[in-house]
């Protein structure tokens, strides 16, 4: 049957006012339901008619999903809190600046006013083959169109290629992993708390989704522990346009220093693989070392070990190396 784009499909819209009500709805509709946060990911997909859910569950009316609360020196951020609110929040700015900067680097002012933290970390990939409706692995098919001799894959993955070479496009995800944030997930079966690092899935685990969220699951809050409050933070995003663009590569760093020595560090790059890539090996190598050019060089080289660039994205290797060096060098 013919394919046409650019028109919202019909669906039943639900606007629950509590998490329990939302869970009941998504439990009832199962895989036929789609959760609507800020809509930045969803409306594109709907307009393209590549997803046609029977039910859309809009979380916009649930007060308990909104806002930023201080909890024991850390923060609990409702999943529906907008990126703009996070970017301008005084405690996020003063204690967890890497998150403020990451949230402030997303999209455009309009997108940050509408887009939510929960949506930003849970969004799907922007691979142009997948988003255009090609029947790739991620869409349930049996090939990857972005990894062929003629594929245009400048914006695709250089790490952990496993049939699918799409990348995670989130700016806030690497910041949350760097902050060792905890993701609060609720379903009709109860609540579970998962480390941000484990929230994201690569194609080796599940090729059709990018997070652990299953049908019936709802990300309700993100907890940022006090562990890294006030640390040295860096966030950098390299993109083609100064606004309204996804990262070519981004990097989030949290670092604890004393006397010029790196005491502890968490270093995460994104848009290089299907999930944010925490650079454990680099962290281990630079811990206890001075923050200088030699350490930076070492870190940069370690960071790109095992990179497997595709035809058009070799530059991402150098870019990742340089960004890691910069993060260490300061």
């Amino acid at each position, binding site marked *: 049957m013919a394919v046409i784009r650019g*028109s919202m499909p019909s669906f039943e819209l639900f606007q629950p006012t509590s998490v329990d009500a939302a869970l009941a709805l998504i439990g009832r509709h199962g895989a036929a339901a789609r959760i609507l946060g800020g809509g930045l990911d969803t409306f594109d997909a709907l307009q393209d008619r590549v997803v046609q859910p029977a039910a859309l569950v809009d979380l916009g009316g649930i007060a308990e999903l909104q806002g930023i609360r201080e909890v024991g020196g850390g923060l609990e951020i409702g999943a529906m809190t907008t990126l703009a609110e996070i970017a301008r929040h005084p405690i996020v700015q003063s204690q967890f600046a890497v998150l403020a900067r990451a949230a402030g680097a997303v999209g455009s002012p309009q997108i940050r006013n509408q887009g939510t933290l929960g949506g930003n970390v849970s969004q799907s990939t922007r691979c142009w083959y997948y988003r255009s409706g090609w029947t790739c692995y991620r869409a349930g098919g049996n090939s990857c169109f972005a990894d062929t001799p003629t594929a245009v894959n400048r914006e695709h993955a250089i790490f952990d290629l496993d049939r699918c070479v799409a990348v995670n496009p989130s700016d806030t995800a690497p910041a949350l992993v760097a902050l060792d944030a905890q993701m609060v997930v609720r379903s009709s079966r109860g609540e579970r708390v998962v480390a941000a690092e484990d929230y994201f899935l690569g194609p080796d685990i599940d090729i059709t989704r990018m997070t652990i969220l299953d049908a019936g699951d709802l990300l309700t809050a993100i907890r940022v522990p006090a562990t890294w409050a006030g640390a040295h933070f860096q966030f950098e995003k390299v993109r083609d346009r100064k606004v309204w663009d996804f990262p070519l590569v981004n990097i989030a760093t949290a670092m604890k220093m004393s006397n010029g020595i790196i005491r502890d560090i968490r270093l995460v790059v994104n848009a290089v693989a299907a999930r944010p890539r925490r650079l454990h090996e680099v962290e281990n190598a630079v811990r206890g070392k001075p923050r200088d050019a030699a350490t930076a060089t070492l870190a940069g080289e370690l960071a790109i070990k095992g990179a497997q660039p595709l035809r058009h994205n070799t530059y991402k290797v150098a870019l990742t190396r340089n960004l890691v060096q910069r993060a260490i060098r300061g």
Partner: protein
Amino acid sequence: MSDYKLIGHNYITPDLVAKVTGQAKYAEDVRADGMLVCRLLGSPMPHARVRRIDASAALAMPGVRAILTADDLPVPPVAAAPSPPPAPGTSPAPAARSGAAGEGGRRGQRAIAVDEHGQPIGGAAPTPAAAAPAGTLVKAEAALTMEPLYEGEPILAIAAVDEPTAVAAIERIAIDFEPLPFVVDPLEGLRPGSPNARREGNVLLQGNRIVELKWTDADFAAAALGQLPAGAVPDGDAWSFGDVDAGFTDAALVVDESFVIPTTSHIPLEPRSAMAYWQNGKLYMHCSTQSLAQSVPAIARYCGISPSQVVLISPYTGGAFGGKNPAYLHVAIPALLAKKTGQPVMMKITRDDEMNIGRSRPGMIGRAKVGFAKDGRITAIDLFVVSDGGPYGRGDHGSGARLASVLYQPKAMRFRGVGVLTNTVPRGSQRGPGMQIAPAMELVISKAARTLGIDQVAIHRINAPAGKAPVGPPQRDGSRRYVTSAFVKEALDKGADLFGWHERKAASGTRHGSKVRGVGVAVGTYSAGSVGYDGLLTIEPDGKLYIQSGCGHLGTNSVFDTTRAAAEALDMPWDKVVITQGDSTRNLPWSCSQGGSQTAHAHTRANWAAGLDAKRKLQEIAAKDLGGRAEDYTVGGERVYRTGAPGRGLTFAQAAKRAIDLGGAYDGHELPSEINAMTKASATALAGRGLMGVAKDTFKHDGDTMSFVAGFAEVEVDVETGEFAVVDYTAVVDVGTVLHPRNCQGQTYGGSLLGMAHAIGHRWVYDRHYGLALARRFYHSKPPSLLDAPRFQWAAVNLPDPETPVGVRGVGEPPVGAAYGAVVNALVDALGDDAFRRTPVMADSVLASFEAGGKPARGALAFHV
């Protein structure tokens, strides 16, 4: 010049409040009782034949009213519809153009210097082959097709009670396709044994004839990697003047480089939605368009009816950039569906549709071999260009060569080019068609400047056109055409001062942390005026001046700005002027198309002519009533009075009443014979309302009117990330007398940003194995955002063009190539010669050049990656 009261002064255009308050109604805002909505179904394949359409399930759905397929279209016209312009310098094909002139559009009225795309008509001597046309005559592009030639080409349309129903119905249609061979890269299409984009061949000639043209393996083998091969080109796509060989022999330096230029979409903010209904045998069409007057015959042609049956309502257009000129052939779809159903039909064009059918600028590969004397003077240019014609076009190579010939004033030049058909989006004229030659030429010129130790501004200055500078290929008699005037050296000098060129140049190349800066300069040009159109106005007994404007309102505001010339001629205060535009029933005069930056020139002339006609009539009436001769009377202060005796005179209101009493030519009951039929009809309808000024522009005009811009750019590059920003940009425009400064500024800024887009990010991307487009959304195709815009400065040379009464030339297009070239030169200044061989330059190519340690980029010359 300085004593003008209106020309050269800022004012508030009459559309402003409606636009900023959202009251302005664009085509898609229009509603009518019983209105249906139609949507298009595009081809999922780059080239296919439709064997069978089964729409039974769709048509059986409640709310579905009609289907339209290619079979329902009128017999395709002979003319190429809004396809790219003929290569300048080749003869226009009369057969291919005749359809453009309908009722109200006599061919004799057409601009002498330029055609509807702003392209000059006339030029190279005919080749012997022109006598016996080669190739297969093919149909022009139509609104719907059974043989789609690109992904997204519309096959059918469904009209239903609402949009969701139309879309759901389309999803129930089954089509049996026979896939056909395709090609998305024009260079690939020239390889021996490669598929052709169309069954008839791969190269479109003038007059809609297609031939097959393949280069030989030897042609390809003769070119080094990264160098454009130089195989055979069609007759008519080659010309030369001067002694090219001697130019290279005598040169102190010869530089030879190849460069890939992207295809870019027009992406007007307003997609080409259109709403149509029929009443009393007339088609009422609401659509967006670049021209009001000239779209009427075009719409008639698309719909297979006579221009007298068309009522066009188009008071606002949300951008066009050459892509709605005149209107667009898809208006036939709602028109014919409305006829079929007896109900109004809105054709809803989505952004996705607009990306498909909304026209794109042809990409190119240019190879420029240029000889330089020691002082930087260009001794010879040998330019070879392959352009991407898309499925229906010829490409912009001819226009590009013409622009190069005037911009750099070579003593000798040879041009060869070929436009190759591809199964990619259809190409059309985009703001400054041919300007995309800029990087191919500029890369060579700035490299020569560095090699010869000459400043970039100096090398542009020594080669700059001045005065009645020659332009284009030789004509039949061997002579070359020339421009009306050029003040490029003045623009370069002014710009260098304003930009602080020498200070910035001294600081460029120095590294600050990971940042390095570079500066660049380039000159842009384009046609900037045509002649021979009509002005029409009345001074009515209420004392006001009513000016009719047949121009389109595509956002440039020339529809209003040019009427200032009529008011100026009559010394009429602006608050007593009422402008009528945007509706073909409202008695508008024949006007030029709003393409080729013609309007500011053409219609200051036409309005000046109408203003002078009214002034003469005022003087004659005063002389009749108050004695003496007409020339004894002065017009000013809303009066006509005896010179030296202000008390003896008539107010405009009194004169308007007297004109009605006198009748004849005074109130429009007798009309000049030379005006266009459309103007005549409009003037006849307005006759008796007051004193009429109506005239055709017959002012003298010697040369091709072209405008020029000198652009200066500074970029800052991060050598560790490859990210860069255009931090500053200065444009100095040589556009004759500035008509409306604020608007001139807007056009300069907008055109510059469009030019920069080609340098910094805007692109089309295709998967060449599947022939399908990937960069469908803005975050993929990456037109610049507001934050990508640099700090802008602008100034005007502001010297009047001597070949037009108020000295005004057009401004819309010349800024584009200047900015494109200047940013490319600035990037080369920062990154080094040979750092890149294609635009857009993006973080990846910058980083790759640093990683290569300055080794020249010599990749394959692939398109659309």
